[in-house]
């Protein structure tokens, strides 16, 4: 059972437990259905190649959702998350593993700022400039 983290225990520089997902095409189809974003570049190779992509790519919001799992999981309560932002800086294709990594940047009373990113197996940043404001 999750419980809200004690902000008194948080220290700048603390690493959050990483969250990794190996992305399968089925994950993207499932995410399309759950989110309502049926853009064919996420499930149809022909359409993806026609617009200059190597093949289907993951939804940016799929990657952000996986990174948000790391943030809310560490906070222990989704209600503790006050703000979340990212930049989408590279695409990731099925068959690759996405790893979300984060670090506590600031602690001020109950207020904690986490900076994070998500990368592929080669270390390319799929999500960059990730920032989460938490109220623990």
């Amino acid at each position, binding site marked *: *059972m*999750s*419980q809200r983290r004690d902000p008194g225990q948080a220290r700048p520089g603390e690493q959050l437990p990483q969250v990794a*997902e190996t992305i399968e095409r089925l*994950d993207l189809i*499932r*995410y399309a*259905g*759950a*989110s*309502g*974003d049926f853009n064919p570049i996420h499930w149809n190779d022909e359409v993806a190649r026609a*617009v200059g992509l190597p093949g289907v790519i993951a939804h*940016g*919001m*799929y990657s*952000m*959702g*996986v990174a*948000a*799992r790391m*943030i*809310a*999981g560490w906070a222990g*309560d*989704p*209600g503790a*998350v*006050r*703000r*979340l*932002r*990212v*930049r*989408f800086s590279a695409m990731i294709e099925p068959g690759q593993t996405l790893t979300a990594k984060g670090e506590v940047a600031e602690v001020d009373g109950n207020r904690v700022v986490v900076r994070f990113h998500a990368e592929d197996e080669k270390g390319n940043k799929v999500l960059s400039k990730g920032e989460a404001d938490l109220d623990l």
Partner: protein
Amino acid sequence: MPLNQALVGKEYPPVRYEVGREKLREFAVALGETDPIYHEEEAARAAGHPDLPAVPTFPIVLSFRAGQVVYGDPALGLDYSRVVHGEQEFVYHRPIHAGDRLLAAGKVAAVEAKGRHELLTLQTEVTTEAGEPVCTVRATLLSRGTAAPREAAG
């Protein structure tokens, strides 16, 4: 063709959205989220939630619907096939739970040229039906190659 700058600031009529438990579970499953608070009502209540909570990125579902109203405005001139998602931000005012009856209103927050491309910022205000703020969602989209050509340097 460039996006229509005159629409910056334009607010569109809200879409209604009723948050269902199965939808929240489905969205959590799609992201590989297995924490029982997102799936079991008892676990959610034991953690202090009135019902199943939404995962943090769930408001994108409402923003996407509100966005369809905005992008569908022929006056905006957006070709969605040229669009790439650039940045995303959520500012949370109140948690979302199953049973919430919400409104999501889209607005063209900004249009700016960036080289040959244009950046379009869609802002969606998610509120309760009574008008209580729930979440502010900002999506920055890159519209590839639509900026007006610059005058050739003399």
